[in-house]
């Protein structure tokens, strides 16, 4: 089994993601691939990592979304592979039209790096197999443009289709109150594509995949490939 991390100029969480995937997917081959010339044909799982691809100039993720490597991502999705966009990777997937919506700057107009609480919504996805709806995770965010915009219609559709993966919440899963760090529509922190095999999320699971110091919530998301393989999925 192979997991590939797509590296764009300016990606800066690619090595971190590699470290975390090795922890999460023992026995898998994990590679980092430079976007130019990337070959995902032997891949079961592709991660678009965090960072500032192309400096986030123009709009976050916009330039990377036009890379030829994105065609490989679309092909992997068509084959039923898993795709995870983390932070900047989520922005790239949105700019590429693979996930809905758009991003704006955080309402506070500056970068935010801190742990947040996330509530797992009712969603069928290999990425969420380890959780029950309502579970509360702690993951760090680190972004400047994480204000995820959806129209009300889009939001309702995603909700009806069970495609909202995470929402920002309080320590006990409550969403009433001031727990939305960046202004995202309805506190949405992560969404799925149809079928649940593509996940985009602003928080960084790879930064919470470090059992030795007690950060582990991200590990369970990154282990999606294992869950799918165990269930005899189509990987």
């Amino acid at each position, binding site marked *: 089994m192979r997991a590939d991390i797509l590296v764009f100029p300016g990606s800066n969480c690619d090595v971190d993601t590699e470290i975390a995937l090795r922890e999460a997917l023992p026995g898998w081959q994990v590679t980092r691939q430079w976007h130019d010339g990337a070959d995902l044909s032997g891949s079961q799982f592709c991660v678009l990592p965090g960072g500032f691809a192309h400096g986030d100039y*123009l*709009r976050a993720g*916009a*330039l990377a979304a*036009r890379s030829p490597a994105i065609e490989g991502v679309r092909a992997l999705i068509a084959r039923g592979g898993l795709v995870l966009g983390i932070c900047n990777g989520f922005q790239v997937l949105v*700019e590429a039209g693979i996930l809905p*919506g*758009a991003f*704006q*700057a*955080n*309402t506070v*107009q500056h970068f935010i790096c801190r742990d947040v609480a996330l509530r797992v919504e009712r969603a069928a996805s290999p990425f969420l197999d380890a959780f029950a709806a309502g579970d509360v995770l702690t993951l760090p965010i680190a972004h400047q443009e994480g*204000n995820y*915009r959806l129209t009300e219609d889009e939001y309702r559709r995603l909700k009806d289709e069970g495609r909202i993966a995470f929402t920002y919440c309080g320590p006990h899963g409550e969403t009433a109150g001031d727990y939305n760090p960046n*202004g995202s529509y309805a506190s949405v922190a992560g969404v799925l594509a149809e079928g649940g095999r593509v996940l985009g999320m602003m928080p960084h699971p790879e930064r919470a995949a470090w059992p030795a110091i007690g950060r582990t919530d991200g590990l369970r998301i990154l282990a999606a490939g294992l869950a799918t393989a165990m269930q005899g999925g189509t990987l």
Partner: protein
Amino acid sequence: MPEYRAQLGVRLRSGVLDPAGQAVGHALRDLGFSARDVAVGKLIELTVDAASLELAEAEVRRMAAELLVNPVLEDFDLEIAPR
């Protein structure tokens, strides 16, 4: 081939929240100015080679559609002239 200089004014579509504009508006009012309805957009300027003004304009509109403007949030206007 003739050169044309294009200028795209990229604005948030009406109805889209503009936190940057709001923040600038606040800051201006804090400084004692009467500013209202502040909007912050982008000004993208570039030079293209094309056989005619029409072709140049068409090329820049394709650039806008393919990369420069995000239609989910943004509108734009275009001015273009020979260089």
